[in-house]
């Protein structure tokens, strides 16, 4: 589900948009997929919830472990 909240920044009104399921939100300018979208409130931009979920953060340990499997000493 799309979630939006308004906030003020240096006297200007903005709207933050995100998905409560952690999916991309689709729309914006330029139009596309965003992990989170912040827009001037006056523009009234509308978003839909995408299918895709942003990739999870990776850990350096994962990579170093994989290097170790290749015989590389880190």
């Amino acid at each position, binding site marked *: 589900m799309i979630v939006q909240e308004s906030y003020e*920044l*240096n006297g*200007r009104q*903005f709207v933050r948009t995100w998905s409560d399921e952690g999916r991309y939100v689709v*729309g*914006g*300018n*330029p139009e*596309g997929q*965003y*992990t*989170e*979208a*912040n*827009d*001037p409130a006056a*523009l009234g*931009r509308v978003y839909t919830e995408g299918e895709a979920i*942003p*990739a999870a953060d*990776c*850990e350096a340990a*994962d*990579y170093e*472990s*994989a*290097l170790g*499997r*290749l*015989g*590389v*000493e*880190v």
Partner: protein
Amino acid sequence: MIDVYRRDLQMNDEQKGQLTEDEEKEEALRYIEETTNSASGSGGPAALIRKTVTANGDYTAADEGADGYSGVTVNVPSAGYTVDDIAGGAVAGDITLTGENIMQGAFTYNPRITSVTVMGAAAIGNYAFYYCTGITRFFAPAAVQTGQNALEGCSAMTHAVLGNLNGARYAVKGCTNLTALDVGGGGKLASSACYGCTRLETIVLRSATLVALDQTSVFTNSPFKNGGTGGTIYIPRALYDHLGDGSSSDYKVATNWSTVDGWGTVTWASIEGSVYETQYVDGTPIPTA
């Protein structure tokens, strides 16, 4: 890439038990090649030099009939380097890479490379120069893709010229001496791309169309963040002032960029009329057509 490794690492114990150590390495290499090729869309082989260099000068893997890898040239500063495993840190000095794509993790943790020039439309693999702490300059103006974490932790690097930063999460994360970043292509600046670039003060976005900003975390812990000391972003005049009266910028109303603008840390400027019209941020002249 990490997803690929996770797929590898999540192999169950029964499956792991069926592989010899060499088979495991071969399997991991295959994953890397698959991902590099799919990321670049080239369909060509990944580039990896795995031979011993016996003389100084330009060295090309194909010259020695490398086992399935070809097309990368490394300028080796003197004889005696062993590049049987580049990731082990054998290559040093100012290197020029030509030919095909740069494999994921190819130079990871190599502290002896001092500068990198990537010739042509190569794809730079994920983690390709991860924590190469000796690199001071990275020049790849025609690169078609920069991988995730590709230059993370290059703490001595002051200038980076990249042909494309589309979707490259953590691309220059933690490059704590990076002062200027030059990006030629469009697409999207991905999450945390410039995270922790504490001295970043100049960004040049040359794309004729708006570069999307995935979220404002792209600039976390950089001078461009909310409350930071600020910096200048150079963009094409057509996007900087599309009405021609100095009053408008497409970036100021673009998704997420509008908030970055609202932080008050960004100064917008036109590439045209600036020094960056004729040269990259590292001072290299831009070839005229």
